[in-house]
């Protein structure tokens, strides 16, 4: 019994030792007979530049701009954006508005503080934005739109009361994507700049609430 078991082991070991060799031999035979293994996955030549991309964004926006110490007036502007990643985007904005009279001018009835030209407000900004929360809005039980809440910060210039004013802008916004290439954004922006028309250099916070129509290209 023991001998039988031992010889069985021996045969197994020898067999195992020769197995790789015989396998190799089989393989080289196969190479010679030029039978190749067909890949199971179909190869494709795919060029990403032929796929439409939606990384650029153009928008018109309108809303209200409140200039500190002056009144609130309509503002209209343009935005151009580029989406760097799913979270990060850069955006340039340009807008125009104008201001009315300060309370002082209305009550005092004296000479106006600013000329008509100086009442024009024009600003441009370049901002870096961050998509904070992605979500969905359920309009009806079968209609769903993707949404994004974003924050952005930027720098630029405001031309108001005859002078250029270095401007820092902070914004929060809510975007609803009605289609892959079209969204409507509601944005609240704080335009922070120094104003010296009342004698001293004061930092003013000028709030702007806008609605924009965005096209992705």
């Amino acid at each position, binding site marked *: 019994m023991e001998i039988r078991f031992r010889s069985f082991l021996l045969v197994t070991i020898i067999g195992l030792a020769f197995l790789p060799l015989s396998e190799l031999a089989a393989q080289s035979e196969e190479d010679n007979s030029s039978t190749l293994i067909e890949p199971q996955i179909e190869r*494709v030549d795919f060029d990403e530049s032929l*796929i439409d991309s939606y990384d650029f964004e153009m928008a018109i926006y309108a809303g209200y701009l409140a200039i500190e110490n002056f009144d609130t007036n309509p503002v209209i502007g343009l935005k151009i954006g580029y989406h760097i990643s799913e979270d990060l985007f*850069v955006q340039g904005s340009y807008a125009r508005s104008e201001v009315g009279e300060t309370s002082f001018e209305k009550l005092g009835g004296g000479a106006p503080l600013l000329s008509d030209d100086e009442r024009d407000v024009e600003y441009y900004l370049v901002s870096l934005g961050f998509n904070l929360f*992605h979500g969905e809005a359920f309009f009806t039980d079968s209609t769903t739109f993707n949404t994004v809440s974003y924050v952005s910060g930027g720098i630029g210039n405001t031309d108001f009361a005859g002078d250029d004013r*270095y401007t820092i802008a902070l914004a929060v916004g809510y975007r609803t994507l009605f289609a892959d290439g079209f969204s409507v954004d509601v944005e609240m922006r704080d335009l922070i700049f120094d104003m010296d028309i009342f004698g001293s250099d004061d930092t003013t916070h000028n709030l702007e609430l806008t609605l924009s129509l965005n096209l992705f290209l």
Partner: protein
Amino acid sequence: MTGLFLLLAIVSPLSQAQSATEDESPALETPDTDSSSYRVTIAEPFVEMHTGPSAGYPIFHVVDRGDEISILRRKTNWFKVETSDGKTGWVSRDQIRQTLQPSGAPFKLVELNEADFARRKWVMGVTGGELESAPVFTIFSGYSFTENLAAEVHLGQSVGSSSSSRFIKANLVMQPLADLKYSPYMTLGIGRVEVSPSSTLIASNDEENTFAQVGIGIQRFVSRNFLLRFELNEYVIFSTSSTSDDNEDVSEWKFGFAVFY
């Protein structure tokens, strides 16, 4: 009005850059299905479909290996795909990497890596900083002739307490070690500056002068098409004003970011 002009200055190189990449792409045989989409067979064990182009949107469907999908469009790193049973959703580029290049060859997509960063052609960006203690704001656009030499145009504005100035500058940028992650560069430039005194001061005339500039900087590649830069500049303004004939020396620091193609 200047603002609008600046915006246009941003856009024009962008559209050029886009058309440039389109021109360079080799003509591919049109797939047998409709021309606006590409059919590929999933090579990964499974691919997750999200409801929107971000990891923040929920996964609503999973496609298995061997299933066919059509690629419809792209938004940043996400592809909109349609399954054979008509479900549409978004998959990330990372998840279908093997599917798009099943031969295992290097990924041919427009995706940029650090080597591409050194080979980039178009760059555009924004900087903010201080010019003689007054805030300064610049947008710029550039084109690289080689990986070490580029030309840039800068449009800037600086708003001080007594005056504000606008300038346009043409720069030559030399970047000797373009492969480094933190890559130093030197700049030489000339330009024109227009200085308008603040309207609250006694009215005086605007002044326009030529200047020369020399600078050093360092830039750092952050993501696939995004870089940060820090720059120190020294300006010599060739003053032509009636009050002073001396040249004016001005120094500037600024920090900014740029997108490249």
